[in-house]
């Protein structure tokens, strides 16, 4: 789907996908590589989909 976010783990620097549902519900992201859980605002990098894609 076009609305997944890409985040970079502050623990291992690996990039992975996070559902925006998690950000909205303030659920920590969990890195699939090092299993670190962290609030999305603590990610080293967050790339959100362009709003252009979300609107029909």
């Amino acid at each position, binding site marked *: *789907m*076009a*609305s*997944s*976010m890409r985040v970079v783990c502050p623990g291992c620097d690996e990039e*992975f*996908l*996070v*559902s*925006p*549902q*998690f*950000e*909205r*519900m303030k*659920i920590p*992201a*969990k*890195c*699939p*590589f090092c*299993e670190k859980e962290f609030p999305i605002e603590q990610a080293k990098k967050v790339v959100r989909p362009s*709003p252009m*894609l*979300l*609107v*029909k």
Partner: protein
Amino acid sequence: MSTGQHAKDLRSFLAEVKQRYPEELITVEREADLRFEISALLVKLDRAHKFPVIQFTNLRDVEGKPCAFPLLTNLFASRRLCALALDSSVEKVGLDYDIRSQQLRQPVIVDRSEALVKQVVRKNDQVNLFEFPVPLPYHMEGGRTILGSVITTVDNHGGNTYNCAYQTLRLISPRKVTVGLGEGTHNWERYRERVETTGEGLPAVAWIGHHPAACMGALTRVAIDIDEYSVIGGALGEPLRLTPSETWGENFLVPADAEIVIEGIIPPKERGRHGLRADFARYYSPETLRPVMNVQAITYRRDAIYHDIHLGGRDQDHLGGIPLEGSLYRAVKQSVPTVKNVHLPSSGCSRFHAYIQIKKTAAGQGREAIVAALGVDRRVKHVVVVDEDINIFDDAEVLWAVATRSRWDRDLVVISNMICTTRDPTAYAGSPGDLSYHAYTVAKGGIDATMPAPPEPFEIRIKVPDEVMRKVQLEEFVAKDLLSRIPPDA
């Protein structure tokens, strides 16, 4: 069928493959690592266009310990073997599947003593799902997911209408999993209704490993009030044998001839991380929150085979795609009675692209077929309609028809904002973060790549006379060993 007869199951199918196509059943005895190695082998075989069923007998789990169970995978990867499972042909297997699954066969109930899946029974603290050889298939998956599990629920009223669907189980602890129940699916509706009306959790069963016709039967599109054990019996060509579960006895029957059965309760409110994982579209699906299942018992055969699905390859393509071909054919036939065949090619993950072959008798039938097909399943996105001389199992030939028989100002149909699968990477969300089942839309459409209907003339396709094609044998002109040494080109 008397219950004393040997019923169709995974073993009977493997025996048939061994007899009919021995080169398509491979046992790998060398040690293999569940971390990515199985997927690497399967991806390489896919790329070589070879699709054998493979059984791994010497596995190391993700912690490096030997596994007690063998793993079988790629069961559906060969269309020829899928046809064998359904007594059909490569070309007609989707259509024949549909006919069979419409002929409901009531299941039969057998005693526990006759049920091979009851040879080993483990309850409560004896349960450890990590003992099963659940692979890590792709690099970004942070946990292990059971992919070959048919989640089964029973209606909350009469208790005799079962629903079955392939839904994933993500391992959380030895007795707990998250269940990939998608909103809007029949199992989800059972869960929602149960929680709303009783406040209690939903009993559920996951069964793993059965005859491939039974597995495909679990994917038939029928109304929620139709018993899917009976549908599976239709697909199987004989009644499905059931036996009482360990947890609910005769109030919840389970397939007696499965390899493994997992019994549990999906509690009302608890949600867990259904971790980041691969999906059918060959992309990663982000982590979501899904209902959990607390496992109460597992039963399995003494020498149980763990059946895994190769996600992202032909195995998974055919498992979902062949049943869908039948549904599309039935729907299109209502609008275009001269439809000849339907194929969902792997180039569209056997979901997104549909090739429809028709015998065109009237103008407009191409567009009729497109519209009919797009309404069948939310995953179907692009439809190409071709004439009956086009081989719809050959992408190149379908594209040739598009190249030479379509004019897009006239023959292209595009419909904006149709509901689609959330797994389409181009899908638009209605609102950011809304992951509900109906929240995603995408543009869909089709190309009418048919020739004009008769009597309108059209160019005539080149052709070598049939009798000469039959007469000329390659080996008579080019030595067989030389022929086998000529490398295939791109």
